[in-house]
């Protein structure tokens, strides 16, 4: 009956292919960075790039960009739960 227009038609083949190219380039950057520097900096950079990559996947491939405010906000919930879990775990590990 009622089918809401999801607006997905807004993104064509081109958007996805460009996103894919960006993801591949970011992967190459991660490999290059971690090859030369093995310190804490490379861990940080690698995780930062991984987060940018997952952001791109979420926002474009997973259509979060076209979803309503509810989906955009709800997504923050597991991130918050995860961040809290990490925070409290390391409070324990560091000050034990």
């Amino acid at each position, binding site marked *: *009956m*009622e*089918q*809401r227009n*999801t607006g*997905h*038609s807004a*993104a*064509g*083949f081109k958007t*996805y*292919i460009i*996103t*894919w190219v960006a*993801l*591949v380039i970011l*992967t190459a950057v*991660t*490999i290059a960075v*971690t090859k030369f520097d*093995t310190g804490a900096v*490379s*861990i940080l950079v*690698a*995780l930062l*790039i*991984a987060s940018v*990559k*997952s952001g791109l*996947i*979420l926002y*474009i*491939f*997973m*259509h979060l960009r076209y*979803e*309503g405010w*509810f*989906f955009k906000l*709800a*997504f923050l*919930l*597991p991130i918050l*739960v*995860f961040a809290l*879990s*990490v925070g409290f*775990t*390391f409070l324990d*590990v560091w000050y034990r």
Partner: protein
Amino acid sequence: MEDTLSKTAEHHRDYTGAKMGMWLFLFTEMLLFGGMFILYSVYRFEFAAEFHAAAKELDRTIGAVNTLILLTSSLTMALSIVALKKGNKHLSLVFQVVTMLLGIAFLGNKYMEWGAKIHHGIYPNSEHLLSLGKGQILFYGLYFVMTGLHALHVVIGIGVFVFIFYFTLSGSVASDNSVKLENSGLYWHLVDIIWVYLFPLFYLIT
């Protein structure tokens, strides 16, 4: 009466509800893997040197190839939805098959990688592994559990696509009713995201 009911059920579609349900499921998946990532980071913190030594043994090339395979499969997945929305059912089916084949290629690589490790005597509870340090045992334990659970998700994803392929072929998934395809896509992309983190954490940061 029953006839009207089934007819209503047949025509009733709740796009937002279906999406919401899928995202809620994906949240639980994120936290499932999230817990393991916390475990990984705590032990990495505690056994930094041994994790460093163990991670060196992993093959960066196989990891990089598998990353490329999964990223590309995510692309073909997204393209299959675009193709269907544009009314090109045939192209959508082609992209779905390519996605499945890429998933199988990923698993093939994983099989060879695990096979090489097992050949070298590195598998859970193996004599060789137990003779190594505590940190290395933990590293490989996490490696097998996390990449194993991830590979299981890839297997399930391929299984789901077999059904979606059939649904698209039979027309129950179509350009005006594509939520099943879209939700399977969401699942596939999430599996990709998990790999985006697994790859640097196990293969790159040594």
